[in-house]
């Protein structure tokens, strides 16, 4: 009975994909708000079906909780056979519950957020496709099917980040996300090639079973290539700049990317391919260090961002770093736990940020906010809870998950990783406190006496160019259509909402003396639901024997892995105590600096007091600028050399030369066809004579 049910896990990805197909074909005609309700309804249905799957798998004995159902043979080439099949096990079921559950809330929220957008139907079509791809990714029974979802997720991130493509910055950000992800995809592809060459199969079950017996070179190569793929998708060092630029997309998209889909795919991939990482200790070390360095660096970068969504984006990168750190010390369950908890509080934070932006005329500059709790009380409640949750204040969700990770790092003996992780925890407390205090508490700074948005007085050259582009964009927008353009689009393409770190001068408030307003109920319900989950989420995996439900549930997936566990309750408690104290120190510093808001909107205390170090952090270590300089300079030169010299001269020259040879030969040979019948007859005769001679001399001999 349960086995039969589990064969139907494929229904979960199918439901949103049906929604995507319907909305892509008829989205425009269905229109608002029915298109949104169709997409949301199908997501809720998928969630319900995921619950059925959960019930089905819980009905099975623990050692039988893995079921592969094959729909059909996808590829059959020589020895290699790849099935289009689904794998139902605790890991995939955890993930489908997460994606459909949090996804449903985000979809519901989007109905309110995307209100009056002319492309309402298209938005929900892409969102459904996004969710469907992610579900395919996690339910696939082989690397190839996961790769299909993997690519689908990448495509949808491009479509959604660049959803407001009339805005050049959004179009560019979409391309950046796509291209950066492709770098990671190369790793995924190469890993699959090695798997085919070494094991002749791409099935998770078969490759996982074969991994421990393979040579150490092979498993390390596979593990590191899969890590490259995960680094691209999960925005780890050095492939993270795309995620902060992805803030150009509509805020529900950011929520979906950060909370439910996309970036957790990297964590999923490593958890799914854990036999290779287990077999290769070196790869695990690399994973742990990539994770902790990302957690630390992104946490530092988040401290100085003036943009509401960018703080959250760096925060996500940092939290993903924690998940990688957990994977690196083989604390797979802790990583999955963190994914779930992070989805709750980061989903809440992003939806809250969307609510703030929505109620604040698209302004994202936190320097000109302040005391919003008076105007957006429910959003304030939700985001305040999520703030405490992400900072790791007990007993909220983030406390349980993050402390379990740090504890695992200590127990695994990676003290360097542990110490850096603790410092990152201080950063987490600090940047989140700064954000929440500047937005919801302190003094009001949006009353209009702020300095004009784009004027001089910046400490960086770049801001001058930024101002110039803003001005040009405004002009362009007006040239095309003066007045009704913004209305027709539902947004103003000339207005660039994202505030770059280089903009030392705060923007002008767009409120025009009005107060910010609270969002409609349809947007508040998901925020408060996720806030509730951020409070209660920890209950699914308490660090006590018998209450660690997630540990028990995932146990069959990570069977045979010695996940780090505290030796005694006291050891666990003291380790968690250290982490909590450090998180509270971070929050304390934040409160000290920002409790009263900003005296002057242009003077951010951290930015003022850290000087060049601050600038270094604020620019995110110039990784983005460095990559831009490298690929814009030598990279571009190489590309141009390849284009102009290699491609146009050598390759095109070869192809065109061959064509010219044939053409010239034809030109010469056409004179043979002179239309004189008698000459043709002579040709036939001579040919016949030649054949006869040949037969006489060689054959008849």
């Amino acid at each position, binding site marked *: 009975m349960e086995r039969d049910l589990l064969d139907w896990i494929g229904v979960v990805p199918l439901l949103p994909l049906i929604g995507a197909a319907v909305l892509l074909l008829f989205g425009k005609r269905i229109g608002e708000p029915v298109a949104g309700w169709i997409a949301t309804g199908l997501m809720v249905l998928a969630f319900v079906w995921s619950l059925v799957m959960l019930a089905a798998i819980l009905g099975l004995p623990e050692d039988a909780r893995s079921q592969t159902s094959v729909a059909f043979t996808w590829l059959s080439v020589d020895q290699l056979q790849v099935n289009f099949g689904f794998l139902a096990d605790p890991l995939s079921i955890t993930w489908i519950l997460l994606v459909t559950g949090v996804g449903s809330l985000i979809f519901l929220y989007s109905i309110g957020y995307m209100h009056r957008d002319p492309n309402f139907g298209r938005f929900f079509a892409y969102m459904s496709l996004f969710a469907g791809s992610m579900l395919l990714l996690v339910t696939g029974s082989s690397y190839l099917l996961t790769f299909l979802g993997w690519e689908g997720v990448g495509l949808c991130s491009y479509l959604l980040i660049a959803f407001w493509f009339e805005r050049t910055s959004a179009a560019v950000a979409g391309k950046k996300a796509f291209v950066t992800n492709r770098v990671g995809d190369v790793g995924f592809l190469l890993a699959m090639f090695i798997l085919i060459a070494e094991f002749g199969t791409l099935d998770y079950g078969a490759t996982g079973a074969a991994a421990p017996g393979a040579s150490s070179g092979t498993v390390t190569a596979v593990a590191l290539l899969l890590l490259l793929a995960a680094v691209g998708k999960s925005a780890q060092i050095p492939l993270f700049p795309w995620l902060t630029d992805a803030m150009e997309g509509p805020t529900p998209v950011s929520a979906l990317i950060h909370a439910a889909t996309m970036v957790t795919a990297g964590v999923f991939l490593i958890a799914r391919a854990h036999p290779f990482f287990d077999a290769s200790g070196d790869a695990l070390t690399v994973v742990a260090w990539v994770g902790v360095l990302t957690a630390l660096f992104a946490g530092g970068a988040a401290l100085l961002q003036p943009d509401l969504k960018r703080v959250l984006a760096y925060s996500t990168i940092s939290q993903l770093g924690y998940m990688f750190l957990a994977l690196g010390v083989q604390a797979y369950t802790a990583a999955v736990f963190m994914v779930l908890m992070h989805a709750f509080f980061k989903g809440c934070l992003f939806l809250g940020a969307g609510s703030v932006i929505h109620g604040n005329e698209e302004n994202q500059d936190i320097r000109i906010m302040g005391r919003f709790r008076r105007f957006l009380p429910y959003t304030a409640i939700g985001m305040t809870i999520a703030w405490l949750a992400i900072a790791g204040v007990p007993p909220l969700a983030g406390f349980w998950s993050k402390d379990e990770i740090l504890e695992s790092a200590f127990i695994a003996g990676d003290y360097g990783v542990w110490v850096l992780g603790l410092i990152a925890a201080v950063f987490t407390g600090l940047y989140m406190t700064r954000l929440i205090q500047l937005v919801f508490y302190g003094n009001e700074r949006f009353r209009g006496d702020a300095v004009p948005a784009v004027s001089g007085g910046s400490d960086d050259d770049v801001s001058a160019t930024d101002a110039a582009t803003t001005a040009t964009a405004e002009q362009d927008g007006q040239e095309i259509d003066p007045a009704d353009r913004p209305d027709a689009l539902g947004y103003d393409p000339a207005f660039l909402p994202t505030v770059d770190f280089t903009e030392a001068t705060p923007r002008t408030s767009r409120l025009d003396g009005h107060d910010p307003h609270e969002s409609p109920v349809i947007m508040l319900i998901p925020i408060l639901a996720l806030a509730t989950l951020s409070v209660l989420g920890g209950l699914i995996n308490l660090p006590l024997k018998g209450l660690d439900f997630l540990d028990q549930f995932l146990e069959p997936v990570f069977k045979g892995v010695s996940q780090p566990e505290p030796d005694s309750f006291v050891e666990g408690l003291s380790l968690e105590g250290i982490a909590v104290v450090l998180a509270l120190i971070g929050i304390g510093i934040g409160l000290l600096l920002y409790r009263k808001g900003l005296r002057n909107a242009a003077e951010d205390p951290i930015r003022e007091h850290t000087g060049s170090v601050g600038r270094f952090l604020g620019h995110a270590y110039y990784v983005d600028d460095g990559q831009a300089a490298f690929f814009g300079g030598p990279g571009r030169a190489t590309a141009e050399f390849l284009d102009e010299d290699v491609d146009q001269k050598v390759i095109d020259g070869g192809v065109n030369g061959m064509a010219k040879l044939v053409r010239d030969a034809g030109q010469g040979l056409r004179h043979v066809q002179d*239309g004189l019948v008698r000459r043709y007859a002579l040709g036939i005769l001579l040919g016949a004579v030649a054949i006869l001679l040949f037969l006489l001399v060689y054959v008849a001999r």
Partner: protein
Amino acid sequence: MIAALEITPSYYLILAAALFTIGAVGVLVRRNVIVMFMSVELMLNAVNLTFVAFAKALNDTAGQVLVFFTLVVAAAEVAVGLAIIVAIFRRRRGATADDLRVLEG
């Protein structure tokens, strides 16, 4: 004297070769399409002659049967070929092979 002259197949073959050569040269050197056509018939009949000669020499009727096929095909060819020549003649007031070179490359 006359009885002593025995007619061997090689006589027929020599005759056939002579006829064939005359036909081939006729096709190549004459410009009048009708004469070229007749030359082709001559070549065909030269071949028929060799068939019959070998059939007699080897005592095998297959050669004679083949001749009938050749005759049938030749008859069909004549019908088509003459029709083409008539058609050309109507359009061009003449049937000189060298003038028909619209297919020149």
